[in-house]
């Protein structure tokens, strides 16, 4: 399946991926509302690490055998058998964070409940990839992760 991969040597540390991820996962889909007024606060699901010299964005690998799905006590975390997308159903998640603790890449986010990348379900290209100003995130067929 297609996944989002980070090209470390091109990452600017601008964190626009986080900004657009948050916007894409807001109710309004409006960048300003998403960041300034929306309640509950939308959650970004991509993590930019590092500083200007070395930075990269990490998000879900949508593993073959996802540790987060294995760990989920509610059944909210699932891997779609057709698309391969691993996603968390927020109505059922109770925020135990076992998935956060199980994820070998550390890319499930703990807020009131667990949030993670859903590859912007339904979009041709996830928002982080689409808006990366330097193509430091690419959306391609890759290796099979865990």
């Amino acid at each position, binding site marked *: 399946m297609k996944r989002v991969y980070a090209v470390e040597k091109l990452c600017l540390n601008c964190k626009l991926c986080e900004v657009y991820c948050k916007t894409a996962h807001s109710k309004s889909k409006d960048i300003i509302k998403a960041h300034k007024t929306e309640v509950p606060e939308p959650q970004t699901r991509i993590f930019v690490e590092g500083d200007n010299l070395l930075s990269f964005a990490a998000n879900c690998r949508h593993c073959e055998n996802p540790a987060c799905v294995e760990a989920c006590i509610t059944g909210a975390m699932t891997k779609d058998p057709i698309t391969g997308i691993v996603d968390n159903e927020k109505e059922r998640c109770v925020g*135990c*964070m076992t998935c956060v603790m199980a994820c070998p890449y550390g890319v*499930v986010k703990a807020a009131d409940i667990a949030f993670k990348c859903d590859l912007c379900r339904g979009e041709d290209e996830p928002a982080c990839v689409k808006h990366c100003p330097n193509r430091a995130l690419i959306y391609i067929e890759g290796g099979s992760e865990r």
Partner: protein
Amino acid sequence: MSYVIIGNSAAGIAAAESIRKFDQKGKVTIISDEPHNTYGRPLISYFLKGTSTAGTMHFRKPPFYTDNGIDTIFGHAAVKIADKHVVLDNGDKVSYDKLLLATGSVPFVPTISGIEGKDNVFTFLKYDDAIALKAVVKKDSRVVIVGGGLIGLKAAEGLHTLCDDITVVEFADRVLAAVIDKQGGTIVSDHLENNGIKCILNNTVDTLRDGEVLLKSGDVLPCDFLIVAVGVRPAITLAKNFGLTVNRGIVTNTHMQTSVPDIYAAGDCVESYDILDGTQKILALWPNAVRQGRIAGASMAGHADELFDGGMPLNSVGFFGLKVMTCGIINPADESGYEIVRIAKGQQYKKFVMQNNMLKGFILINAPNRAGLYTTLIRDGVDLATIDGDITNGIGLINFKPEERAKKIGGGAGR
């Protein structure tokens, strides 16, 4: 091929899914003494609280069984395994070619005088336990919970929305004694106290009387409902009676196969290999059960690719917003040979247990993000010399070597 699975929770469901992945034709039957479709067992406390409802308790969406062509026998206990068939409590026989025991645990009820035949004494392991409690507990009810472990404390949190007077009585010197240290346990019990749950440590319930309990210390607590949550035992009676090799739990090989070739076992009823201390033990953990179920199902359907190579203690749980994570060896009895780092700041507490330059365990209270990376360091036995920076200050993929990171998130990009 006829597959029979006894148990309708984590391991049983994972096994059924796994069988169906490899065998779309065989007959699959799940037997459970509970009358419910599969539900997230730990959600029973959330059901009390109201976070989870009858509509969201399901572990798999309701059409799961029909979608996967799985027959169900719910509300009937399997009472006996005989030659290639299982006998139910109504006398029915269910024949199998391959059998999975995913029977889980049963509550352990210690000797407390006066509890025999009382209808105000509960255990807290099943959906029906929660339904029953929700029906009887009133705002002014006084509840005493024996046992300050995960089950007892989650029950306390769940009940808190139903009634005001809740007391947890714990035999050890701290709550969550099995999974946390004294310092962490204190943060948890303080937090519970602040949220209106009374915690009594170094004590236990001796006698249940009319409207009160007598504690071992001689103190008396008012009590309308007593919840016994001191622990669980693997449900191994069926296996034992049939003559399977059983120690503390059912013994299996890495394919989750028991001493009888056509019988498999998975989940809380089996003994698992602990990768950290190298012993066989009961690792009654949800992810463990799911993995074992998946492996057992695949093996039963003739696909033995994945092996169960062992598990380790791993718990993540929240109490009134306090996020508690513990993993691996967190409280070694003898600290010599270990390097232990503790960082405490208000309600945040981090403890790292290292040995031979490898992370062996951690406690993270209110510091959940990126915790999975610590888990990975433990599970993969990563030499900390290959990790940049001091992981006790925080962790990210940036602490890993570039080539390791490229493997993790650079993928096959090759750029």
